[in-house]
């Protein structure tokens, strides 16, 4: 396993040896203060998610079922005064007809232009921190989530986790099944920069607006 890196086996051995030697005289070895358990969080649900997400410039809506998503998209785009055309994540399971019925032009695949609207299938959301979780995986290109100007993430309500712990369990389950995603990303707002003064600017490299749609069963 050691050789799986490169030929720098001696640096590896030296570093680990120095760390073991240092640990022998370290004040940190006789620790009694172990408690990595995060503070217990109060009950958190949709309202808490929406409040926190709103504070970091994301918007949230909630619809009855997956079939109602295209209409919610149409409404959102109209509010933002954007044309009703979207690119959808191929892993998002919505029939083409439902987009037609909602009057939204839809293509499945990759974002082509800077101004595109991308509809992404979210993996989960975390109520206590107002974050939506997207992940790379079979059939979907994660780049689209970061290239589109408008990022809409669709999440089943059942995947709204109360706290971080839910996500850690999910990662561990993926890990033991041997399908840990290349990347999981917690999104709490649009691509933002503070490097051009105050106030901070949105749409630094990626999305300028992020909208979350939760759907029930």
């Amino acid at each position, binding site marked *: 396993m050691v050789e799986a890196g490169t030929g720098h086996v001696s640096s590896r051995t030296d*570093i680990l040896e120095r760390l073991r030697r240092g640990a022998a005289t370290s004040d940190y070895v006789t620790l009694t203060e172990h408690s990595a358990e995060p503070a217990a969080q109060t009950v958190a649900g949709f309202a808490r998610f929406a409040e926190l997400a709103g504070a970091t410039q994301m918007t949230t809506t909630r619809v009855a079922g997956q079939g109602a998503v295209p209409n919610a998209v149409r409404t959102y785009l109209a509010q933002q005064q954007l044309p009703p055309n979207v690119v959808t994540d191929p892993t998002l399971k919505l029939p083409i007809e439902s987009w037609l019925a909602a009057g939204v032009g839809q293509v499945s695949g990759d974002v082509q232009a800077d101004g595109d609207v991308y509809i992404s299938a979210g993996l989960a959301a975390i109520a206590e921190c107002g974050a939506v979780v997207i992940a790379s995986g079979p059939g979907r290109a994660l780049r689209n989530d970061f290239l589109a100007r408008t990022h809409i993430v669709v999440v089943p309500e059942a995947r709204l986790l109360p706290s971080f712990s839910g996500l850690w369990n999910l990662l561990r389950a993926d890990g033991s099944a041997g399908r840990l995603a290349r*990347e999981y*990303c917690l*999104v709490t707002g649009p691509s933002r920069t503070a490097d051009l003064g105050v106030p901070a600017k949105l749409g630094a490299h990626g999305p300028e607006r992020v909208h979350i749609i939760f759907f029930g069963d």
Partner: protein
Amino acid sequence: MRAERDFPGLVEKEMADPVLRESLGAMEASRAHMYKLAFDELDDAGDLKARATAVRRRSIAGMAEYLQQFERNVLANGGRVHWAADGSEANEIIGRICRDAQARLVTKSKSMVTEEIELVPALELAGFEVVETDLGEYIIQLRGETPSHITAPSLHVSLQQVIDTFNEHHQVPRDRPLETADQLLAEARAVLREKFLHADVGITGANFLVAETGSVIVVTNEGNADLTTTLTRTHIVVTGIEKVVATLEDAEVLLRILPRAAVGQRLTNYTSFFHGPRGVADADGPNEFHVVLLDNGRSAMLGTEFEDMLRCIRCAACLNHCPVYTAIGGHAYGSVYPGPMGAVLTPQLAGLAASRHLPNASTFCGRCAEVCPVGIPLPKLMRHWREREFANHLRPAGERRGLRLWAWLNDGGVRYRLAQAVTRKFLRWYAGRALATGWLRHLPGPGRAWAQTRDFPVPPEQSFQQLWSKRERDT
């Protein structure tokens, strides 16, 4: 690592810069305020800080084990791990990976470790085009400058200077409108979008490494780390060995505290967990994933009086609250890591002889230790360096003689009283007409530099001891 010996000269130069004065003033006000709001809203901020401190202590105590566990998991996830004893070894490893990937264009997200090892100049020397994608880093890269703050690298650059820089470097029509922050952003976005789309290798740092899953965690607000890594063939992570933590729960405690301490946010807009190359059925992502673990003096700190510094999570709260940093700015320190954390870290990484001024550039007001989210006793560590500086005879010989004289004068009652009386009489005579104002605007000899920016009080006619004995006699 870079360190500049002429600290006093740099301070003088930086303090004369009006742009810097203004941006430092604005930053001090806003960052300290945001920090306060972010911790005040917690039920028990002290508890979170104690947990974060405990996590860092535990991580450091078990670093050897956790690093090996991390390595096993990265390998299991399809990545490779490289160990680098110092900066030149790290640069050599990264250069080789770029060559093997037949790279031309390399994008990178913000990383202080890459500044520490001077990776970009090394890669450029090897013939690669390297583009910084954090907007602040991009601006200073065009200007040929180094970061002046560890989380706000272009703090010292005004909006007008950004306009001038873009005009000088961007291949675009000169008559386009370029005045507002929005116009600057649109132009930077378009230029960097092209770089993202055509890059071959993407380099990131890491905020934390998780042993149990092999996760590499990177936090950004711009999302540039994600574009850097999803659009390239090879993802290289380069980071310090001390970033490893045992579990996802440990990482969670630190993720809760880092953005609060750094910029007053609950979480950054993007918190990314990277695990390896693309999966077989993934529609994008790099084919190769490499993690370069850098030591560069860190392992030598464990088990010494400086081991507390290994807890540092690079949030920059100590810079934002430091009366010295906020007066002189980051470049004056002449080292990669400025402010109180830099004053402790730089002598370790660059040698004390080259950076002996830095542990002295502190008023010991203690604010840095108060705001440090992982409880690093920064003034105490600076004091350790001062002791070593004295013990190693690195301070000027004249100062040592002066101190010996001072000790001799103050050691005996008669000598002490005599020296006091002579000094008092001399300064009252030296004051001349200024005697009435009570303040000396200049001092002679060794006091000259001190009084250049300060007034010295004229000593009273009688000493405290004389006044006291008089009072005792009178009553």
